[in-house]
């Protein structure tokens, strides 16, 4: 009995050891395989969310007067910038950057859209927004809506928009606003964030990697 028990114990131990090694190796291999896409995104300049965030339903207007809802963010990637037409420095600079991004990504024109959402709906009528965005790129989409609807969207995206009154001239108030570009994925989920300093080349290379891993 004893002569038989020892080899059997040894066999069990060996089996256990081999199984453990195999399990660890298999786990290692599987996790490496599964995380391959994510691991490639670790050195992005963009902020890439581990879990893209779904958006609550919203209803806005595009610059042609058509409804702009969650549906308009599905089936393609959307680059979104929040700003206003009375913004002469940051907003034109950012829209120029987005135009450069669009030019560099023109081969994927059907899969990318560029949207400028007003944080100043009081002054930014659809017409005015249309003139503003078309100056940078005729494919860009200007979006406005009621103050409530825009507030509801900015809050869920963590976008800040704060009106600053001008004591000398009530018509010329300023609006502090988030300076980052938001990336919405083809499911219509908030997927990544490009923060200043914004450079078209960096945005394009980060976006290409994000879209490949998607």
């Amino acid at each position, binding site marked *: 009995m004893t002569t038989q028990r020892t080899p059997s114990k040894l066999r069990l131990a060996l089996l256990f050891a081999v199984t453990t090694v195999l399990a660890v190796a298999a786990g290692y291999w599987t996790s490496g395989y599964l995380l391959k896409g994510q691991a490639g995104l670790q050195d992005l300049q963009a902020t890439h969310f581990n879990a893209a965030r779904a958006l609550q339903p919203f209803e806005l207007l595009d610059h042609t007067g058509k409804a702009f809802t969650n549906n308009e963010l599905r089936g393609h990637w959307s680059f979104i910038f929040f700003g206003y*037409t*009375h*913004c*002469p*420095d*940051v907003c*034109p*600079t950012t829209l*120029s*950057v987005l*135009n*450069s*991004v669009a030019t560099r990504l023109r081969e994927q024109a059907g899969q990318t859209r560029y949207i400028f959402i007003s944080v100043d709906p009081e*002054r930014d009528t659809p017409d*005015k927004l249309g*003139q*503003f965005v*078309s*100056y*940078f790129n005729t494919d860009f989409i200007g979006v406005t809506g009621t103050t409530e609807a825009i507030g509801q969207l900015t809050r869920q995206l963590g976008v*800040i928009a704060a009106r*600053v009154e001008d004591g000398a*001239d009530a018509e*010329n108030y*300023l609006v*502090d*606003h*988030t*300076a*980052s570009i938001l990336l919405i994925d083809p499911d219509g989920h908030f997927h990544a964030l490009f*923060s*200043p*300093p*914004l*450079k*078209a080349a960096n945005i394009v290379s980060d976006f290409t990697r994000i879209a490949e891993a998607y």
Partner: protein
Amino acid sequence: MKLKGIALLTLFYSLIAAADSPLVVTEPWIREAPPGAGVLAAYMVISNRGTDTATIGTIESPDFKRIEVHRTLVEEGVARMVPVEALQIAAAGQVALEPGGMHLMLYHPKRPLREGDSVTLELQQSDAACIRVNVPVVRMTADDTADHHHHHH
């Protein structure tokens, strides 16, 4: 940053100094804005060749209702524009007004301004002369605006 030839020449050769002012303005330009824009931005480098700090009190132009100096600040991802009450240039120093930084806010243009147009700005130095600067309107076409001055020096 790519500027069209003529505008670029205008930038290089617009060196304006009033005989009785220590201030010299170089590379002035107004960013062409979309049609109907209510506010435009102007940029320039102001150098002080004097031995005292120079202060620019008011800036006026026959082509705009009102002009202010603002500074763009991006803090925690939020862009703010902060009015600069008095633009000061240290003795033998210079101040650069550039995209994403300090700029002139040109409110309510009195005529449509397109690339190729130019505008006179009057910089009133406190207790000193008024400097007249001829500023071309320039269309920006690329994205690396922060490097504007470095690329063209």
